């Protein structure tokens, strides 16, 4: 068992006061804090190896290329991809999804085809498909969420009806950023495969929180962001099966992705370079790999258990806060370390402002889940999301703060 109190010390950002109180950071669903080793790796890259990659053969440039391609290989290992060439570096989940929705769909999505999504998708795994479908004359379908608070997750029975042969791609989130639900991703992929549909997994919320093995999951594409998994901002990953990537047209074009350029026509390199036009975000890719080392140093099974335990503890502690409505799995059902809720007496933004005065960082809003929130009759919720550096004490402080908020607003 990792020593979580020890792990917390690796995160210097947490050693600060906010509004005179020690910071309790419960907003890792939005972005995670970074361990010292990741910051060190950024500095080290710039101090020792900084150079442009690929096109250079002087010492720094070779070291930078080795570091960058090493990060690619590390990423392949992190998700058990069969081949480093299946790893495309992007800015984040949003760009990864856009890449597929633009490149793959332009070559493969036709009038009458269907892209299947779920109602719990983040806007970043929803709007790009609206755009792609509109361009192709294809349509969207949604797997519904079940229960007044979406507590029963996806409607797996509806899947049989929805997964018709017209479905060419099924894109769904591995772990919801609003419900705290973890979807049965391997089963969803298997069922899609049966009707000949490809699958894309939005792993933004799962990648740093539980073991992710693309071969075991059986997905065709997988997208994630570095900044939510202890890595820097500005770097993310698209995993795609090699045969698919190599058959896809380029996305952005320019330096680094071409095999030859003439004034009036050009040819492309194979993947992954084909999809990495321009100077890549070298330093952040290299530091992302260090975040992976750090996560594997703790162990992703251990992190998953820690998340689950804190999630369960939150459910237990929040249960008797007066007027609370919690979205997603009920107490006792498995969930991640993320809970979002609405209070009868206080609006989410008032909750977050109030908690902030107690040094507690929560998030309030629609969490980029507007359509589902609307279906659930909500405009916004407050959300607490945990990670490796959180403890039961953090949750105790949050719950105490919430009780004060309720008292303040209901008493008024």
């Amino acid at each position, binding site marked *: 068992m990792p020593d979580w109190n020890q792990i917390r010390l690796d995160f210097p950002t947490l050693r600060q006061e906010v509004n005179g109180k020690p910071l309790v950071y419960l907003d890792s669903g939005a972005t995670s804090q970074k361990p010292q080793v990741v910051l060190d790796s950024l500095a080290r890259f710039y101090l020792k190896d900084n150079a442009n990659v690929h096109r250079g053969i002087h010492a720094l440039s070779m070291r930078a290329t080795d570091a960058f391609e090493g990060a690619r290989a590390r990423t392949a290992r992190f998700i058990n991809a069969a081949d480093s060439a299946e790893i495309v570096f992007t800015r984040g989940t949003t760009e990864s999804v856009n890449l597929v929705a633009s490149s793959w769909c332009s070559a493969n999505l036709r009038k009458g085809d269907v892209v299947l999504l779920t109602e719990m998708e983040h806007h970043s795994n929803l709007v790009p498909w609206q755009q792609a479908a509109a361009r192709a004359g294809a349509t969207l379908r949604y797997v519904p969420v079940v229960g007044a608070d979406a507590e029963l997750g996806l409607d797996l029975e509806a899947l049989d009806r929805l997964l018709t042969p017209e479905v060419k791609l099924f894109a769904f989130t591995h772990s919801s950023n609003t419900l705290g639900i973890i979807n049965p991703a391997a089963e969803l992929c298997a069922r899609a495969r049966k009707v000949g549909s490809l699958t894309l997994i939005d792993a933004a919320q799962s990648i740093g929180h539980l073991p992710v093995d693309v071969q075991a999951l059986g997905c065709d594409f997988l997208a994630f962001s570095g900044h939510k998994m202890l890595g820097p901002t500005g770097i993310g990953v698209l995993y795609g099966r090699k045969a698919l990537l190599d058959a896809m047209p380029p996305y952005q074009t320019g330096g680094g992705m071409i095999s030859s350029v003439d004034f009036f026509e050009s040819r492309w390199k194979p993947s992954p370079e084909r999809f990495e036009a321009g100077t890549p975000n070298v330093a952040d890719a290299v530091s992302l790999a260090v975040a992976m080392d750090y996560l594997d140093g703790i162990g992703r099974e251990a992190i998953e258990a820690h998340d689950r335990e804190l999630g369960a503890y939150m459910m237990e502690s929040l249960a008797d806060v007066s007027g609370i409505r919690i979205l997603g799995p009920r107490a006792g059902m498995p969930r991640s370390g993320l809970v979002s809720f609405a209070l009868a007496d206080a609006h989410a*933004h008032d909750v977050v402002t109030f908690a902030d005065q107690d040094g507690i960082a929560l998030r309030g809003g629609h969490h980029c889940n507007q359509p589902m929130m609307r279906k659930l009759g909500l405009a*916004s919720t407050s959300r607490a999301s945990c990670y490796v550096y959180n403890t039961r004490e953090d949750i105790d402080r949050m719950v105490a703060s919430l009780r004060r908020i309720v008292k303040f607003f209901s008493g*008024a």
Partner: protein
Amino acid sequence: MSDLTDLYQQVILDHNKRPRNRGKLPTANRVAHGDNPTCGDQCSVYLRLDGDRVAEISFDGSGCAISQASASLMTTQVKGKTPAEIEALFKNFHHIVTTGEMPEDISDIAAFAGVHTFPARIKCATLGWHAALNALKGDPTTVKTE
């Protein structure tokens, strides 16, 4: 906690709990809708302009205490005024919420002075006002405060 009680003054909590002029206005001849895409706050303002004065006004919507109380208080301030007077009122209000400076003739809107130490909440406080101003302009499109 003192900052918080500055922010959530009794006037604000009261307007939040017991909003004035809430609901659709069947006789309205101007309407505008405002929203804040960041947080999902929404506010519709309905008003009847009679000659060049606001004869009746109401608001509708959902959002945080600041946005709801501000919209409610706004309706009480705006009623009976001309568009020019309302512009002046808003200027005054905007000055209060961005600087925390009290106006000379203390009125209820001075309760919003505490907002200025919470810059992220300024757009909550101005949502209803923006909708009202847009309604007056006869512009029925959605206003955003972002």
